[in-house]
């Protein structure tokens, strides 16, 4: 029964399963720290705020898919920090922003959006011109900003669906050898002049702001070329970058799993040892109570609790613990019954040691190896239960967990629409995290329970 920590460590390092489990866990911990350091916590609290994701594409496939495609899918581009120049021509000052990018795809982009905030007085003129790889210059827009006598800040998003852009393009029909009718702006801007196919190469978007005031300024200037591929993990229906959700899910899942496992094992251990050591009536009553909790249907109860009391992640951890300690208590009790009969416990009792001291000093340490194995084994259950509750839409809305990503995927019918990048990664992450702990738990179990060795 008693094994020294050194022996456990030695045995554990010999087990292939244990090593695999520990390695996966180490990777997950590294991911967690990267997530905590690299992604500011404001981002994940904005997870359910749609305005935060407005410049991102809808259900975009992960960017790396293009590596395996013969026909490249346009990647979603958010271009910030343009090349800025300011000129003064007599009375008129010209601020120009240049966005240069390489368009190297076999399909037309979804759209393009120019987002800016301008500071001005009077009625400055905003001009958008695109210079294409074939040298062709297309005038997209020439519009005056709303008149203002005092210094004002004007924010606007100009969409490619803008009517004046369409009109301006149809006026330049003679540059194209095909009919521009019923074509959207992006289908014209990014097309070959001879045939209606995408034109690859370097494009430059020129934004000019003409005004008489030298104080005029464009800030937060951003060009979005809408594509169907984005980032490492793609985006979902609500335009959220799945990579951020997946990264943030890692520390959350580890936190939930480990806290629930430690709390329930500690609770069960103390409960079981106390019942076993006390014996007689106390034992009987405590074990009956244990039976009652054991027979409660956990999932319906967790659902009702989260609906009626609170779905905060911390309250959820408490509820999961309530249903998690029962099995451990049963085993600890029977182990405590065995240890109780040993000579040194009698000796300690005869020396008049306090009961609490006997339990904590002489019995509990004997059960620690078993406790560690149980902690590792109960982590996956806690993680999958939380994921299941989140999947039903009962998760804490202020934290993006993997279960919640899958909940949204299910709500928007991702599976039957074939959006694999939305359903695969969260489930794989849940499974990998579970597996890591199952491996560690099984490896420990073999060491702690010599009966399983064959």
């Amino acid at each position, binding site marked *: 029964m008693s094994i020294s920590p050194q022996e456990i460590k030695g045995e554990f390092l010999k087990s292939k399963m244990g090593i695999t489990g520990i390695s996966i866990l180490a990777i997950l911990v590294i991911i967690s720290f990267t997530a905590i350091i690299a992604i500011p916590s404001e981002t994940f609290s904005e997870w359910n705020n749609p305005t935060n994701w407005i410049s991102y594409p809808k259900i975009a496939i992960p960017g790396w898919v293009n590596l395996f495609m013969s026909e490249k899918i346009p990647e979603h581009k958010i271009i910030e920090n343009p090349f800025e120049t300011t000129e003064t021509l007599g009375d008129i000052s010209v601020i120009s922003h240049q966005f240069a990018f390489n368009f190297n795809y076999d399909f037309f982009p979804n759209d393009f959006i120019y987002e800016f905030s301008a500071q001005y007085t009077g009625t400055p003129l905003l001009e958008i011109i695109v210079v294409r790889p074939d040298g062709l210059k297309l005038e997209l827009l020439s519009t005056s900003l709303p008149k203002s006598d005092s210094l004002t800040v004007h924010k606007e998003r100009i969409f490619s669906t803008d009517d004046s852009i369409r009109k301006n393009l149809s006026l330049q029909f003679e540059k194209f050898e095909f009919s521009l009718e019923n074509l959207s702006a992006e289908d014209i801007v990014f097309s070959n002049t001879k045939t209606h196919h995408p034109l690859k190469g370097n494009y430059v978007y020129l934004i000019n702001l003409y005004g008489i005031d030298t104080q005029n300024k464009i800030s937060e200037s951003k060009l979005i070329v809408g594509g169907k591929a984005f980032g490492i993990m793609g985006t979902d229906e609500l335009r959220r970058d799945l990579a951020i959700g997946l990264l943030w899910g890692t520390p959350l899942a580890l936190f939930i799993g480990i806290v629930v496992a430690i709390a329930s094992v500690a609770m069960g251990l103390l409960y079981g040892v106390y019942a076993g050591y006390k014996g007689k009536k106390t034992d009987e009553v405590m074990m*009956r109570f244990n*039976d*009652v909790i054991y*027979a*409660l*249907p*956990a*999932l*319906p*109860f967790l*659902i*009702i*609790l989260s*609906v*009626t*009391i609170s779905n905060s992640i911390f309250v959820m951890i408490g509820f999961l613990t309530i249903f998690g300690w029962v099995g451990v208590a049963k085993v600890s009790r029977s182990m405590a019954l065995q240890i109780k009969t040993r000579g040194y416990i009698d000796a300690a009792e005869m020396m008049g040691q306090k009961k609490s001291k006997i339990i904590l000093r002489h019995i509990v340490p004997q059960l620690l190896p078993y406790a560690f194995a149980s902690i590792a084994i109960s982590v*996956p259950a806690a993680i*999958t239960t939380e*994921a*299941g509750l989140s*999947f*039903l*839409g*009962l998760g804490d809305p202020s934290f993006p967990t993997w279960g919640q990503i*899958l909940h949204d*995927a*299910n709500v928007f*019918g*991702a*599976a*039957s*629409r*074939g959006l*694999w990048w939305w*359903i*695969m990664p*969260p*489930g794989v992450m*849940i*499974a990998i995290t*579970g*597996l890591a702990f*199952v*491996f560690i738990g*099984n490896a420990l179990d073999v060491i702690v329970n010599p009966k399983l060795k*064959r």
Partner: protein
Amino acid sequence: MALKKYVATRLVTMFGVLMITLFLTVSLVGSNMDTILKQGVVFQVRGEITADPSIANSFSSTEEFEEFIQSQIDQRIETLGLDEPWYSPQRIGLTMYKILILDFGNATFLTSDAGSTDVKEIILEKLPRTILLFTTATIIISIIGIFLGTLSGSKVGSVLDRITSSFAIISSSFPVWWIGMLMIFLFAFVYQIFPARATPAIPPSDPDYVFSLLYHMALPVITIVLIGFGAWAYLVRNFMVGIMQEDFITSKRVMGISRKKIIYKHALKNAAPPIVTILALSLSGSLGGAIITEAVFDWPGMGRLYFEAITVMDLPIIIGATYILTVFFLISIFIADLLYGYFDPRIRTGQ
């Protein structure tokens, strides 16, 4: 005698659990339930009064009319006993008694396919489908599991044994509902073999309904089996490994009885009691999991009913479904306990 005492303690515990579950459920949803009941009364009384225009005409002002309605509502609330707070012992006792005799009242939002709002009727309509789905799946799982477990248990260390064991470990850490989503993706989107939604499109009155139901059931059953049989096989394997090392098996082998006969006739017979016990337990476990699995596949059973009830906060259905799920859960635990007690000679003889 000992067995009787064992059964009696189990029965008492089970009944205690049932009452505690009921009490907890009622106290958790009590205040919300109270508001809903009162709103129901207001709605009903208003409906009854406005249905008869002569009552409204007999009042000179709207204030007086409103006052009359209010007094009627108060009166009705008092006769129904709703004026007492929901946590008063009588109210809780009455509610628990009503639930115990399966009187769940009327659902607030949801209806059965036939259009009834009676919670009991809704549940009776959904329950057989859940039982059908999960019993079918569990039977298939146990057949595959017992067969595979026996095979790998009799050849410890073989390739089959190692594959079974690792499959069991790996499959147990995947959530069933996620595999369900993948299966929908694979068999409803990539290869369009099965429908994505498990609810049959034709009404239950149609003679083809049964076939349609079975066809729609295929994908959920495959998913549950796929996730479940590994763990089963692993359990059966472990029992078999233990039994194959027993002396009586060795002596049978010495007697020259063929290996096949030993495995299937003698070893499996001795492994049967724990296997049957676990079968009863796993049925109860699968019922709890039904809530999420049915939500994924849109299977029109208890689980989806529960899920829908949560989304719209239909409390009478939540209470009713929780009660029914608990009863089923307890019955299967009880059967498992009985089987365990029956097979375990220590309990049977009272040692």
